[in-house]
């Protein structure tokens, strides 16, 4: 484990350069280029505002913001999961031809999604400021913590599924169905309070993303410090997912080049 960390540190430039390549390559050739990173979420927000104000009004006050502060972290998670699962397969030509710590592939994919989310947060802050919800400084300090925890969960699952996908290609398609369902099992589109039965509500907290989304919303929408227990549950899932992911990954990675 320590050996792996040392090696990853030695290869840090590779992670940076893959992240850079991914971020830059994403909008390569388009006129607005990198600006799309901001334009995309901005228009997403505008559309939600119109949709949920006029077409499908919601009982929740400022529903567009309510949705937006949960949706952006969710998009980070779901794209990390789906793209991350494919990250080893996508770099087939590297894996079969050259040595480097294989963990770099899911790490750099998840990291580039993470950086993308961070950039989108500029828009979130703008909207939060404009909408007049206001910011709680103490709560904002919790933001990096929950981001880091979400990163751990996403990376752990990306490690797990990227390794499994190499041996079992159907995983990619199964995952896209899972993520489709997962968003409804997580209080992204609705408040957790909608689930009136408190027993079932507890069941929802078995979903690692529930506490994460609840925490984000507490910080950004309600402008309050999230419950300590919420953070603790999230942290538990983060650590578990990372350990499980790396355990599976390190067992399977030796045979990657053979089955690709």
């Amino acid at each position, binding site marked *: 484990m320590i050996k792996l960390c040392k090696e990853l540190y*030695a290869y840090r*430039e590779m992670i940076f350069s893959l992240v850079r390549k991914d971020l830059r390559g994403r909008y390569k050739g388009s006129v607005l280029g990198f600006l799309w990173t901001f334009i995309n979420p901005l228009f997403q927000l505008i559309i939600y505002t119109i949709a949920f104000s006029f077409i499908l009004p919601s009982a929740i006050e400022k529903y567009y913001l309510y949705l937006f502060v949960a949706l952006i972290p969710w998009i980070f998670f779901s794209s990390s999961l789906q793209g991350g699962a494919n990250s080893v397969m996508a770099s087939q*030509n590297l894996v079969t*031809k050259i040595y480097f710590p294989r963990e770099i592939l899911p790490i750099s994919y998840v990291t580039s999604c993470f950086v993308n989310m961070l950039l989108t947060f500029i828009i979130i802050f703008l909207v939060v400021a404009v909408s007049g919800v206001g910011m709680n400084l103490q709560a904002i300090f919790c933001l990096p913590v929950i981001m880091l925890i979400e990163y751990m969960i996403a990376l752990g699952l990306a490690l797990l599924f990227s390794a499994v996908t190499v041996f*079992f290609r*159907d995983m990619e398609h199964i995952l896209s169905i899972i993520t489709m369902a997962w968003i409804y099992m997580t209080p992204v589109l609705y408040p957790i309070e909608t689930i009136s039965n408190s027993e079932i509500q507890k069941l929802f907290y078995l979903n690692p993303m529930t506490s994460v989304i609840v925490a984000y919303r507490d910080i950004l929408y309600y402008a309050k410090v999230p419950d300590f227990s919420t953070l603790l549950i999230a942290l538990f899932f983060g650590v578990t997912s990372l350990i499980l992911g790396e355990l599976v990954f390190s067992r399977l990675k030796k045979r990657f080049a053979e089955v690709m």
Partner: protein
Amino acid sequence: MTNPENAIEVKNVRKKFRIFYDKSNDLKDRILFRNRNHYEDRWVLNGISFSVKKGEAIGLIGHNGCGKSTTLKLLTKILYPDEGSIAMQGRVSSLIELGAGFHPDMTGRENIYTNASIFGLTRKEIQKRIEEIIEFSELEEFIDNPVRTYSSGMYMRLAFSVAINVDANILLIDEILAVGDANFQKKCFDKLREIKSRGTTIVIVSHALGQIEQICETSYWIENGLIRESGIPKIVHDHYLKHMEDKRTEQLEKQHEQPVLPAPELPGFCEKTAVRMGTQQVIFTNAELRNLNNQKQYIFDTEQEIKIFLQYHAEHPVNLKGNFGYGIFREDGLHCYGTNILIETGDYIPIQENGEIEITFRNFLLPARYFLDIAVHSHDGIIYDDIRQVLSFVISSKKQDIGVCRLPSEFSWR
């Protein structure tokens, strides 16, 4: 690592590949045909052991599919052995896949960063080397253009320059010295020698046996996943070539259902270790070394005249034109000299039914044991007869000068 002087130790390594008759990784097949055994284990390596000392260069040779590339991939840690162990000391760089991770839309300079980072270099280390890399690639003018605008030769040059400037302790090379034009190839080769002289351990897999002979101390001939022979490259390669030639003849015989070529036998004038190849349309019937008085002799002094006397026989000499040549190798495989009639006179010579060739030269080689190779080729390159190590001879000298050959020197002083 049992011996601290070793850079690489490979012990009893075995590797198998699972060959699927009908490869499918999808769910349906997995569930439906759970117990159906539709794969087979194929052992590619059957217990290979060798060690390489720090600063040593070795070559791995063998026909396609013999396991040499698998061995290299195991050393690179792309694959892992099923049995046995591999220990390596120091940073490993591989010239197996050149240009791994190149992005066509990025500039040459950006790609140097990406590519070098894959070899585990940090940004600082890359910055320190970038000028050297660009200079070596000879792409100064184009380095800030996107790589997609490069020709394939330029692309390979850039990739090679990055890989070879990594400053590894162990360098693994698979068939790469076919990069760019002749000039650049020479440059790569010189660079390789320079790297070696700085103490880098090198492992080369190649079909270009000559290149291995020039740079490696030891050659390993791998066949059917086992080391069949190892030792001085030149000698191992001669045996390997002979073996390949035999196999080719065998195949031809099978095709024609009758022996096309009589297996070349070794006549009395040859050394016992000699290796014979060729179609045998023209055959050497005698080979001798003589002094200028036409007496047989096998020990010469440095700076003595030596005459190679050859006799040959051709079954159907009509209109045959040929090229006769010889080569001299030192006992340790060093290629000392070689030439032929075409080089010396600019033309081929007509082949008689029975003919004699005399080659006279002044010997400048220093004391050692040497081997003579002789060959006759057709004007279009068909090998009629080629006998490696047909004769051995010894050079002696009273003078104490050292090296490969004497460069008659005059000292003057004022």
